[in-house]
């Protein structure tokens, strides 16, 4: 019997794989970005199926929201057009696509052979909802928060330093170069 879980998994997985393949097929970066957003939204659905509701929310807000807005903004800022292919890139696709196909088939074969289908992932979402106790979700903020602020406090604080460095690096890198390099004649225009 096919459960609701499996159907939802297959639907979201099909959307994710279709988006990933579309990302490869599209020549224009903005189309690739939109299909990547579809992949991330589908993955948020997969996270919900796995009971990780907080991770799903963060996936939508941070990944599909903030990071992809940054990507789309950069694409529009730089006016990125259709990518052109050279001889070297054709060689890369000639060897890259079969190699990656072979690798993914090998991974799938190894995983399916070794773990089979007897290892059942816990799908607490539908169970707890049917039990009428949705607060028992394992991935809710109530359970993630103490873990994040007690056991993983040091990585969490290091993360803040990392973000600070990233902000400063982004500002320094993306800011206009000093006007001394642009020559004295153009300084008035800048």
């Amino acid at each position, binding site marked *: 019997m096919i459960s609701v879980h*499996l159907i939802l998994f297959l639907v979201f997985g099909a959307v994710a794989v279709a988006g990933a393949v579309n990302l490869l097929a599209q020549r224009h970066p903005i189309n690739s970005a939109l299909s990547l957003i579809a992949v991330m939204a589908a993955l948020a659905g997969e996270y919900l*199926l796995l009971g990780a509701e907080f991770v799903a929310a963060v996936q939508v807000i941070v990944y599909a929201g903030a990071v992809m807005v940054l990507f789309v903004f950069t694409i529009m800022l730089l006016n990125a057009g259709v990518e052109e292919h050279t001889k070297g890139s054709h060689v890369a696709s000639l060897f890259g696509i079969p190699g990656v*196909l072979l690798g993914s088939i090998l991974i799938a074969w190894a995983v399916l052979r070794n773990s089979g289908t007897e290892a059942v992932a816990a799908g607490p979402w539908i169970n707890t909802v049917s039990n009428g106790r949705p607060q028992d979700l394992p991935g809710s903020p109530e359970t993630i928060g103490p873990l994040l602020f007690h056991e993983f406090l040091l990585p969490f604080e290091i993360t803040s330093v990392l973000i600070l460095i990233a902000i400063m690096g982004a500002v320094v890198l993306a800011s206009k*170069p000093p006007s001394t390099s642009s020559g004295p004649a153009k300084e008035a225009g800048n």
Partner: protein
Amino acid sequence: MVPLSYYLVLSGILFACGVTGFLIKRNIISIFMSIELMLNGVNLSFVAFAAHWHALAGQVFVFFVMVVAAAEAAVGLAIIIAVYRTRETLNVDQVNLLKL
């Protein structure tokens, strides 16, 4: 109930798509998006393992991966803007010199 291996296979497929994009794409922004796709594939396997072993630490790792990915996106896109300012191109085949 969905077996754990299905999630791992989906994660592997997404990661393989990311590797393929990294290899065949010539636009530097598309290459960057392929890296994000790879990170997403790994995140899915993290969450699947966390649900399977009832270990919430896997979901915390996903947060750290997301934070690192966001920082990487900010810095990487700033580098792309800087490269575009000096080279006037986004094609990685034409960005092969350290110094102009």
